[in-house]
């Protein structure tokens, strides 16, 4: 077991290293970068002092060096002008656009992203699993048909559209302020009780919006999986033993039908981050989605690179979690892994 985790950790590290190279070179592919673009702009405007500052930044971040050296410095495998200072050392670089360190810009957005998306994740499972169980055990009933239709609607409605509609009515009926994750008055304030309460009330709509598509998809898949498992002979065995229906259902077919979802955790995490970009934009949520979009557009390389690495890290971590949970959940995998 420990051997398995160690092996996985080594693979994870190698994967992340590979991804970091990919991310960096893809960001560098388009000609120019944020600073050279800026310098051209400044030169055109005749601002010599600013040009000098930008050129200083270029030297400071080694942007005048070959790309592979820039990469190694960014990761922290090679000393830059300020010694070893890269991702490995915890220095996430400088955001040229905001003219502040990436860590500072991203700061709150990072964990707010996690909060919003974890809330959506919990919502998806809490809502989808009971509905799917009902739908599978009452196949072809009226309730099943209603759920199915609602599921298709949920799948088909674009998240941002729903976001707009909900924002409008939430404000009209419940007086919830539009957009954001907390009231405007809390911006920049330290986190206290009032701000957290404000966050919680603002979380409801984004959770619903981000989670709905996922919920519909999960109901469909869970229902199909469960129907397959319900037809398996061991379900009949459980009934023949005299188990009460609910207990038999939860212990045997339901547990079997969980496997594909556990295996999917690794995909789910990054999808929630990148999948909620549109919704975040529409609802002006202070999450990393809009930041990433902006950074990519303006070639703010360290900012974009860091966010992409964050998503990659989330994926790899999710894979590890799902593998470990599968090993714990399924003895067939456990025996194979030992």
């Amino acid at each position, binding site marked *: 077991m420990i051997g398995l985790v160690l*092996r996985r950790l080594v693979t994870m590290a190698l994967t992340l290293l590979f991804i970091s190279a990919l991310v960096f070179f893809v960001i560098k592919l388009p000609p120019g970068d944020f600073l050279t673009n800026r310098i051209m702009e400044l030169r055109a405007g005749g601002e010599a002092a600013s040009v000098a500052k930008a050129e200083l930044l270029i030297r400071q971040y080694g942007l005048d060096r070959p790309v592979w050296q820039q990469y190694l410095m960014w990761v922290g495998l090679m000393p830059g002008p300020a010694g070893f200072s890269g991702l490995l050392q915890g220095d996430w670089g400088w955001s040229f656009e905001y003219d502040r360190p990436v860590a500072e810009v991203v700061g709150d957005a990072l964990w707010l992203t996690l909060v919003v998306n974890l809330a959506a994740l919990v919502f998806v499972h809490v809502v989808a699993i009971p509905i799917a169980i009902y739908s599978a055990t009452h196949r072809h009933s009226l309730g099943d048909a209603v759920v199915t239709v609602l599921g298709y609607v949920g799948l088909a409605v674009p998240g941002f559209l729903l976001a707009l509609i909900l924002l409008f009515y939430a404000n009209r009926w419940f007086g919830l302020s539009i957009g954001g994750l907390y009231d405007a008055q809390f911006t920049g304030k330290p986190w206290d009780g009032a701000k957290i309460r404000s966050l919680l009330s603002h979380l409801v709509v984004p959770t619903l919006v981000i989670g709905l598509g996922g919920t519909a998809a999960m109901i469909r898949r869970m229902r199909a999986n469960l129907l397959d498992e319900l037809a398996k002979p061991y379900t009949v065995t459980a009934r*023949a033993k*005299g188990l009460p229906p609910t207990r038999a259902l939860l212990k045997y077919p339901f547990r079997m039908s969980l496997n594909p979802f556990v295996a999917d955790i690794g995909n789910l995490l990054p999808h929630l981050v990148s999948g909620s970009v549109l919704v975040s934009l529409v609802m002006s949520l202070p999450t990393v989605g809009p930041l990433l979009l902006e950074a990519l557009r303006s070639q703010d390389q360290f900012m974009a690179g860091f966010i992409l690495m964050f998503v990659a890290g989330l994926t790899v971590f999710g894979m590890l979690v799902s593998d470990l949970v599968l090993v714990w959940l399924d003895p067939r995998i456990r025996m194979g892994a030992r």
Partner: protein
Amino acid sequence: MVECGDEDFVSPLLSIRDLRVAFRTEAGPFEALHGLSLDVARGRTLALVGESGSGKSVTAQAILRILPRAAAITGGQILFEGQDIARLPADGPAMRDLRGQRVAMIFQEPMTCLSPLHTVGDQIGEALRVHTEASRKEARARTREALAHVGFPDPERALDTYPFELSGGLRQRAMIAMAIILRPALLVADEPTTALDVTTQAQILALLARLQEETGMGILLITHDLGVVANMAHDVAVLYRGRLVEAGPRDVVMRAPGHAYLRALLHAVPRFDMAEGERLTPIRAARAAIPPARSGAPDAGPILRVEGVSKTFTLRAGRAWDPPRLVRAVADVSLTLPAGKTLGLVGESGSGKTTVSKMVMRALAPDSGRVRFDAGAGPRDVHRLGPAELFAYRGQAQFVFQDPYASLDPRMSVRQILCEPMEIHGLPRAQARARARELLAMVGLEAEALSRFPHAFSGGQRQRIGIARALALEPRLLVLDEPVSALDVSVQAQILNLLKDLQAALGLSYLIVSHNLAVIDYMADTISVMARGRIVEEAPRAALFRGPAHPYTRALLAAVPDPSLDHPLDFAAVTGDQSDPARWPSPFRLAPDEAGAMVEIAPGHRVRHGAALDRRVA
């Protein structure tokens, strides 16, 4: 009811009266049981016999009230210990109390009937914990007892194993332990041994008989195997299309079958006491257009020679630093198949017979040894053929699969299935289509079948399509891997006769692989018996069945339940694992990794002896 007066005196354990079960289908209600009546007495076994679709499994499910959702009891009574359980709510507390406690069931597929995610101990003990107040500890102790009772070698360890770690026989023992842990009054066994090897089957049957003697439970044994009926049943009931056509004490029913269906069934299964050249009589005759026998010089040499092939599989090591585990699947196997003849390869699961058949087809490469095929142009090593020669070999050697449900692509029409091999081998489309019609007629199917899809056909019809596909390229050699073991007993005879007729007409050579000795006996000219990857005995068919020399062959033969009442199984003789070479008596005993040598004891009859004898001879 007619019989009243002494009702209480001889009141049967289970009494089904005029039971009707109907399925809701898209085409309207379909009645699966039309008024079935039967009794199971305490301490006795009633065998319920019938082909698939006759309603036997529906009867079992109705008794436990675990019918599929689409089915419902529409009439009649199921009196169990005097209570009409047909009127109880299927999942209500009263019915749940009976299930698993007073009435228990075991199923055909011990693998899929146990959950792979829970330990054997957990699943068996659960029956106890549902019905009694037993604590986890007590349940564990009683589960251990139950496992010991059904013959687990190490019950303590078995508690914490998962079903997929056990052999098929042990899994079925675990199912039985689960069923009998609360000492039910009635055990419903739905084809309990159909998925098992013949020796394992005999052991499970012996176990059921022993448990019945000890606990006095009534058994409703559902089977299509008349050999099992002859050896297990006290009473027999024959079901045909949802109706009881015959019932009574075993000896009466089996010796003088009154109904034509049972008489037909008795003649449709291969038996050991068949006369030389006797043909099976299929229950429903098929009209196959067998082409006239081909004339032509018989081939000179054997069409297939397997020369000393070995195959070792490597199991993935658990930890990186462990040496990989090697499993020797096939060790130095040699076979000779004369042209136009049939060679039978017999053995239990895991004996390596399927691996050999795959190496003949070049689906697996042997570690050593040669497979030489000779279609008249001189012997060639199949595993050294170049691409063009291999392409030609693919047309000359074809495979018929065991499972006709899984081996036909459900998305291809029969025409596509039959034409595909011909198109691959470059036959013009018009010719291929004409040949497809011919092939269908050859296997006894109508030309309308061409545009239909596999799901429209029964198992037997699908197997015909599989055979037609195999014949499409006019092969010389057919490898038949358990060609009838997935089929209903009522159509086995049709398929076996068809294969025999096609062989005679087309001059085909067959390599038939099976664990069913009666099928091999009916089909093969010479037989090779495999155990643990080695051939232990080979002989002409008659010699092998008349005078089996090797203890393993004898064990296999002794374990076959014969439908004739005059040859009962000797349950005492089938206990223990007969496939372990270290436990064979001298001179057959082989030390671990010892190869031994084949010794000819009669012309063409060779048996593997261990070194013990060699020393004495020398």
